[in-house]
């Protein structure tokens, strides 16, 4: 395709005619299926697997459409289209999820083919955002920008997206299957809480190699993934993943959906036996058929646009001066930015968690604004994070204050990344058909309670995660403080877990005692945090104090009213 010389979209894979044809064929296929459903030729039972294959759920009040944002990367054009969809087909907003997708909660079945067609127009789709297949591959929100990165994981994330798309053997697995990939020694993708977690780094000869974790997951049985292999060569990446997923497809349980995840298989067989099965499959494969040749990788890499990083020599000094001159801006830079590999640039995190707001909810106008700001400040490139925030990856340091002023003016400048206000919450009983309790109101109350930015910064790094039921979509097991909604005789109660983490210090939170009624939960957490402030050593984060002292010191605070 020699005519295809247009500028590549920065940070993501540029579709060509073949990719576009594929997506529009899928839209046509789904339009036909919806037609059969609306005409009554398909029963709801028959239609269900077909709609799920296109990301369409039936929730409490309406259909919900989950749109894929592959490895969290999108362009301003795509964000504007999402704004349009929110405005035209939903109630003016969308919801960023922890799996780097966006959900629309109020969709009409009849509109869905049109929505998918609009998405196709900007090279987006909802393929494999649902169903028992390999789901949207997630990756580091600072990919290709972070100073600590060893290898840009997006190229391989795109290769995995392609490989897994309508994979003939793996579209009807025992259960959904999630892969995350990181290229940094600092795990920002929760690699050990995925069915497969890949950590990429350069091998001895400089070519990429992968450490492979398998069998992690949350849900009702949270399990930390185990290392299956070190230093998997790039050319064997697909062959090895095929082998792992084949073993899972053949041996994963199907009799009980709660025991169908690969984590249960790995536990049942034991890592050694699981590894033997994978190795046996790997050994008998015709590896040439699956070899990931460097030429293929380079071909995909060439379809990614890269930012032309060029900043004035004094950009960093200008930022220092701006920070000195404005304490509010200085605070936001402290909390909401991440070090860039280029000294003149920085990555900015836009908090989608305003004080008292609903984590992850964005209005159509905010989407448009984020798109404009991405164009003005970050090469039109936008990243959705698994913490339900948005990142502008490459902002020139001397222009950071201008960006902040615009965000702040629109209510998107909340300085709370990594702090108490940066809560992850699932949709809970407000939308989700599986929920036992509402997650959103607790998140809102906590965030309002700790709105004071000085207080938040004083408390420091703290991860609060909320799920409305045992399925753990809000990652409560992986929160420093986890909150799980439970139902007791028709009343909402909340179970607290402490000590979880999804980062390098990965851990599953421990339940500290009986669940609390709704109206006591926020107070109990406030007492918990007060206790930490009293007990902490200088410079110690909540999780460190908790690990040093154990649950007992905090239990009293939770259960003894002040």
């Amino acid at each position, binding site marked *: 395709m020699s005519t295809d010389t247009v500028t590549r979209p920065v940070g993501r894979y540029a579709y*060509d005619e*073949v990719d576009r*044809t*594929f997506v529009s*064929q*899928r839209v*046509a*296929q789904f339009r*036909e*299926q919806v037609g059969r459903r609306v005409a009554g030729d398909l029963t709801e039972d028959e239609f269900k*697997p*077909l709609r799920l*294959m296109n990301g369409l759920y039936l929730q409490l009040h309406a259909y919900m459409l989950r749109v894929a944002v592959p490895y969290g990367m999108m362009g301003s054009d795509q964000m504007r289209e999402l704004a349009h969809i929110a405005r035209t087909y939903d109630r003016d907003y969308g919801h960023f999820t922890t799996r780097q997708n966006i959900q629309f909660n109020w969709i009409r079945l009849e509109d869905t083919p049109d929505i998918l067609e609009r998405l196709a127009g900007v090279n987006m789709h909802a393929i494999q955002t649902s169903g*028992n297949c390999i789901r949207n591959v997630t990756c580091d929100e600072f990919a290709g920008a972070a100073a600590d990165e060893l290898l840009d994981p997006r190229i391989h994330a795109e*290769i995995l997206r*392609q*490989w897994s*798309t*309508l*994979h*003939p*053997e*793996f*579209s*009807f*697995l025992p259960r959904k299957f999630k892969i995350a990939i990181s290229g940094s020694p600092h795990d920002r993708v929760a690699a050990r809480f995925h069915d497969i977690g890949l950590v990429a780094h350069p091998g001895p000869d400089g070519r990429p190699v992968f450490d492979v974790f398998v069998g992690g997951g949350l849900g009702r049985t949270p399990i930390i993934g185990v290392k299956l292999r070190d230093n998997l060569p790039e050319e064997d990446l*697909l062959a090895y993943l095929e082998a792992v997923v*084949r073993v899972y*497809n*053949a041996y994963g349980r*199907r009799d009980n959906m709660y025991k169908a995840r690969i984590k249960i298989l790995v536990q049942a067989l034991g890592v050694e036996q699981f590894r033997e099965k994978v190795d046996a499959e790997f050994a*008998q*494969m*015709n590896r040439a*058929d*699956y070899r990931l040749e460097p030429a*293929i990788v380079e*071909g*995909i890499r060439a*379809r990614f646009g890269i930012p032309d990083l060029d900043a004035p020599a004094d950009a960093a000094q200008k930022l220092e001066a701006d920070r000195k001159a404005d304490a509010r801006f200085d605070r936001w830079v402290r909390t909401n930015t991440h070090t860039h590999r280029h000294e003149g640039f920085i990555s900015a995190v836009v908090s989608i968690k305003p004080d008292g707001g609903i984590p992850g909810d964005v209005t159509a106008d905010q989407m448009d604004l984020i798109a404009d700001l991405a164009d003005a400040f970050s090469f039109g490139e936008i990243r959705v994070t698994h913490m339900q925030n948005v990142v502008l990856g490459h902002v020139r340091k001397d222009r950071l204050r201008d960006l902040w002023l615009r965000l702040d003016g629109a209510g998107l400048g909340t300085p709370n990344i990594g702090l108490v206000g940066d809560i992850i919450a699932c949709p809970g009983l407000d939308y989700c058909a599986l929920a036992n309790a509402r997650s959103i109101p607790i998140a809102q109350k906590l965030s309002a309670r700790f709105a004071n930015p000085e207080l938040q910064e004083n408390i420091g790094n703290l991860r609060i995660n909320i799920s409305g039921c045992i399925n753990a979509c809000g990652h409560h097991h992986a929160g420093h403080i986890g909150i799980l909604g439970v139902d007791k005789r028709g009343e909402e109660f909340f179970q607290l877990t402490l000590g979880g983490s999804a980062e390098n210090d990965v851990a599953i939170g421990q339940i500290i005692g009986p669940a609390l009624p709704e109206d006591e939960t926020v107070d109990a957490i406030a007492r918990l945090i007060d206790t930490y402030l009293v007990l902490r050593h200088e410079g110690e984060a909540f999780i460190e104090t908790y690990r040093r002292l154990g649950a007992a010191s905090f239990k009293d605070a939770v259960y003894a009213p002040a």
Partner: protein
Amino acid sequence: MPLLENGHVTEDRWAQATAGEALPDGAVIVPLERLEEGLARPKAAPLGVAIGPDVDVAVLRPALPRLALVAVNFPTFRDGRAFTQARALREHLSFTGEIRATGTPLPDQYEFLLRCGVTTVQTDRAEDVAVWQQAHEIISIAYQPSVLHERPQGLGLRRFLGK
């Protein structure tokens, strides 16, 4: 139950072994438990075997040279183990005979079936052949190689489906 091949209804020349009865003379599909019995028949009579989704196809290795058909089963469309079985029969065991999908696969899975090496489908749903045919034709691009060794598209692992 109609039999589909390449999106068209075709005649089924195979008989199924009936429980408790002696095997008939012609082409017959036996359940795995009766494979020995089938293999003991005169060599000229075509033999097929039907396996459940929990069978490791490697157990068929010694019998495969004598088998003209392997039937794999989808107890529900959600149970995708037979995809792996079919693919392994082609890829690891180099089986070149008929692979027949039975049970209740969906028309929308047709392309997956073919790409994993299934050649015929025997299903209640085959009464609506047009839907199967359409499912077969609607997508012309794939993003990964398959046992059919489709023509590569050029970029990455993409393939053109069909002719």
